[in-house]
């Protein structure tokens, strides 16, 4: 479905920050795309045919290959765009991008996207900037995996998801959580039950409800505050 300015609200922070002339040029090439939980937006080592600019929802970027292929190393929402490989010079990349929270994106054909990058220094500048912030997020994740306890990481993950979904309630199975956090399911269950016992969250049948946000922030590692500051 081609983009329709009357019915589709553009909320992606890169696109909406473009100069009016650049946005006017790119708009007819955008296509509205509904992101549904579990959809794969980029498959490792397959040519990226579209670039997605999320307006809402969450996209998980999972570890490169092999054993790490289920491990979440960063998340992208309305502040960014994926995949970045065409922008960085290659048609494909080893990254898997998976929709983690339902939402809307606007996507553009890779060929059109590269034309726009050529014609819009501002788009290029913002994409470089976003690439850098994504690298910071991945670096933070590396450190977090090394040093922080499961419960701290779970708390951080819940906060980041709630921020992006703009809701204190969302669906998430333990299996997905265990993949995202790179720990066994028992580890997730234990950490989640503890947060529940403290009255911070309510967790039942895949539904997570954040009851006490300030306490959840207290339970999260410092990575949450650092990453939130970084995406402003």
């Amino acid at each position, binding site marked *: 479905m081609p983009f329709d300015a009357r019915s589709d609200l553009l909320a992606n922070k890169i696109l909406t920050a473009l100069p009016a002339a650049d946005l006017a040029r790119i708009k007819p090439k955008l296509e509205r795309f509904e992101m549904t939980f579990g959809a794969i937006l980029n498959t490792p080592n397959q040519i990226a045919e579209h670039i997605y600019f999320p307006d809402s929802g969450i996209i998980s970027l999972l*570890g*490169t290959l092999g054993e790490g292929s289920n491990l979440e190393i960063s998340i992208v929402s309305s502040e960014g765009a994926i995949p970045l490989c065409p922008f960085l*010079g*290659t048609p494909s990349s080893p990254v898997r991008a998976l929709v983690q929270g339902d939402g809307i994106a606007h996507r553009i054909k890779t060929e059109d996207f590269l034309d726009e*990058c050529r014609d819009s*220094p501002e788009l290029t500048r913002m994409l470089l900037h976003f690439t850098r912030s994504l690298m910071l997020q991945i670096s933070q994740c590396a*450190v977090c995996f090394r040093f922080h306890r499961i419960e701290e990481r779970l708390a951080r993950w819940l906060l980041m998801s709630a921020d992006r979904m703009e809701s204190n309630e969302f669906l998430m199975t333990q299996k997905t959580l265990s993949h995202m956090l*790179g720990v066994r399911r028992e580890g997730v269950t234990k950490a989640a039950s503890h947060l529940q016992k403290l009255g911070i969250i309510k967790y039942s049948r895949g539904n997570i409800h954040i009851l006490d946000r300030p306490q959840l922030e207290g339970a999260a590692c*410092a990575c949450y505050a*650092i990453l939130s500051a970084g995406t402003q």
Partner: protein
Amino acid sequence: MARKIKADENESRLNHLLGALPDEDFVRIKSQLEYIKLPLGKVLYESGDKMSHIYFPTTAIISLLYIMENGGTAEIGIAGNNGLIGMALYMGGETTSSRAIVQSGGDAVRMKAADLRAEFARGGLFQDLLLRYTQSLMTQISQTAVCNRLHTIQQQLCRWLLINHDQLPADKLVMTHDLIANMLGVRREGVSTAAGKLQELGVIKYSRGTIYIVDRKGIERVACECYQVVSTEYDRLLGEYMRKNLPAPIAHISASVRQRTVKEKAFT
């Protein structure tokens, strides 16, 4: 401050990125390159510093350390003659968020921030190389994250030794267990145990702050897949350049920062 030493052309091109530049591009920048010696332990940048230069190591190896809120550190990437230090200069933002420290003393050439930005803005192959390298560093950092989560200290130590060995002229590495522990973000005892095990296996020899790589294949067998993932990806992104099999010509359009056409062939 010491007098600036103009970089020797052949030595500059020991850096693989500079070495891969076609002559006509290299000619343009060579007068902007300055030779610099980088002793072990020298800090090129602290987190938050304003950056004045981009560095292209020729024989030195630089470690990128992420600084935690409590002051602790962990290595997120390594750049030797296959890379550069200072990508913030072309990615936007002048300050760095990690500490860049020399982990194996040697030489580098560097280029002033303003010169680098001007050259990057020209587009063309230099820009393309830098962006591809950015992508490869992103993979390296991602794989570090995965490795931190999933693999044993011994496997991580092997990964670390292999990455360093790739960039060293000889089979030895001057490095204490303390330093390795800082890099890997683990306790020193953990490193000592892992190194002792590798020595028992006969794949390394360790004596007075020097690690000798005795059996590289043996280290590869003990290492996790992470080393292979990172080096395969580097080759996918940059191998074509290194082998002087350059992608299709790229238009130079100074008004824009990015001038790639999509008609590039997929790497295998």
